[in-house]
């Protein structure tokens, strides 16, 4: 077996992404933890051992909400060269995606409501393949707009019918 491997893409997400992802995780996890505590308080006769389990569960949820975004930030990377868009993502399962400029058909930027509070945007690059969409997540929104413009100009300059 050869020792060839993928090198990490050059750029990271915007540092504010950590806060945004944390907010997202909290929006998901705080109700879960609260529901567990509330159920423990109302539906059981509050035995000590169950209290410890519920407390551990709640703490685990919060730890995940704080820890996971930081882990993502370490892993999620992107790069745009003259010829291709290249991303890496995933924590347990690593995924690298490469799409050549000549095959790119559509470039979208998207900003969710919470995302906008943090001044972030996603750029999605779609090829003719039903499986080939690549998303560069959580960029500074100005950077995302510039990138989308650059990609559009670049793909228009590249010949080919993109299939």
């Amino acid at each position: 077996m050869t020792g060839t491997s993928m090198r990490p893409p050059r750029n990271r997400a915007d540092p504010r992404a950590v806060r945004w992802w944390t907010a997202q995780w909290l929006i998901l996890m705080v109700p879960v933890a609260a529901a567990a505590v509330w159920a423990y308080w109302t539906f059981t006769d509050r035995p000590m051992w169950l209290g410890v389990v519920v407390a551990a569960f709640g703490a685990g949820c919060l730890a995940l909400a704080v820890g996971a975004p930081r882990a993502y930030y370490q892993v999620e990377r992107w790069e745009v060269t003259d010829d291709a868009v290249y991303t890496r993502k995933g924590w347990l399962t690593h995924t690298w995606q490469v799409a050549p400029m000549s095959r790119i058909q559509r470039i979208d930027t998207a900003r969710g409501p919470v995302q906008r509070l943090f001044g972030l945007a996603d750029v999605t690059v779609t090829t003719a393949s039903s499986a080939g969409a690549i998303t560069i997540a959580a960029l500074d929104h100005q950077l995302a707009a510039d990138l989308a413009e650059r990609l559009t100009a670049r793909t228009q300059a590249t010949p080919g019918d993109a299939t």
Partner: protein
Amino acid sequence: MTAPDKPGGQPPPGHSVQATAGRSAEEGGWRAPAGRSVVASAVKSLALVAAAVIGLVRLFTGAGWPTWGLVTACAAAAVLIVGGVAAYDVARLRSTRWRLTGERLELRSGITVRRARAVPRDRVRSVDLRADPVLRLLGLTVVKVGTGERAADGDELTLDPLTRHDAETLRRTLLRGAAADEQSGERVDRDAPLAELRWSWVRYAPLTVWTFAGAAVVLGVAYKAAERLGLEDLAEQAAGPVWDWVTGHPLPAVVLLLTVNVAVGALGAVAQFAESWGRYRLDREPGRLRLRRGLLTARSLTLEERRLRGVEVREPLLLRLGGGARVKAIATGLGKAGDGETEDVGALAPPLPRPLAWRLADAIATGDARTDLGAGLVRHPPAARRRRVVRAVVLVAVLTAMTGVVSWSVPWPWPWMGPWMGAWVWAVPAVAAPVAWWGAVTGARSLGHALAGRHLVTRQGAMIRRTVALERAGISGWTITESFFQRRAGLVTVSATTAAGDGHYEVLDVGRGDGLELAARAAPGLLEPFLVRPANGPDVSLH
């Protein structure tokens, strides 16, 4: 009614290109569909008449009507239905006009809501003909013209119906225009076909799971039909004694039922094969493939070769054991199978003997039946096999544990059968173990990949072994995934994305270095800038 078939008339203004031999005297070259369509509609409406007559008879026999009244009512209903359908069809035909100009194929239609549609001729990618038995007897064909880009609903233009001669001329004209600059072969039809039906292939028809499930389906359909015809009482009366006999003699009944099931299923499969693939013929015309098939309903599908991105050879388990295989096209803009179609849109051939299937796949993909795309596949590392075996062992262990829990905690629900019957649950893990083992070993053995000329070849699958030859020029990106367990085993899954077929085709569980080098060589320059090789790295040309 025969106006559209009259020869003569003026060509469309300003254009020397006129497709069709016959044309109506409409202004501007506008032409009507074939008037004989009214006859076809009337004939087909007889099915409605039959249903109505049965309904009337059922309704009024109880009401004590005299026979002549009943006959009159039925006759009136028949006249009304046939007349109504025919009138509707006349109105439809009168409001439908089409013409072929130098640039466009145009269609105006709609009785109440008028619609005008046009397809530029240089964007026509497919002209599919279809004629059900009634239309065929009348020499008519429904023509579907597609641009093949997104295969969306509004993308197709349907001419329903034209005479067979007009349809064939239109097909040839539209597609010759598209492939004119590539080659000019007029009488290619006379060449030997790529493939032609041999009735001996029918032996592969029953080799599907439907053979074993089919009889139940047939029985269900038969019962539904009986119910529709008001014969459900009869069906239930017949079912009663049959059920008594079955419960009376369980062992011979089970054997008999299984035999009948398989026999009926096999018969159904053979009948379906005959209807789908009777008169099958695959031709290569300049720049395109033409598939003709269908014993009763005749279908003609044309696929432009520039839309073709590769071929897939599928070997489902039963067919594989019988030595057969199927060939599918990987092409862009193929869309979905229409209503009542039993075959995949990409299906290029009925189940064939495996060597023949491979020769056909080679011929379609490379233009030369002697290249062997399926040969010389590189096997994947032993870690891939280990992964599958571990998965199988874990699965069987979980099943065994669950069986243990069930047999320990749940009492056997039929105690009259004796306590030892409870041991039967252990048959589940006992059967699962060899099956899982077989799946793991077979799955590992079928893994393979190769670069063969213009194609990337990859194979996988235990139940259905799929070998895909994807044109390297059609690769529009790569997705490389490495799960936690794959990372520990030094494996990756390299997936080539493409605009055609499934959208992506995987090289499953390949060694990390091998997989990346394969991807780098399959689409030169694309992956190269993102790879790191060890300083004394291996020569790329070595494998």
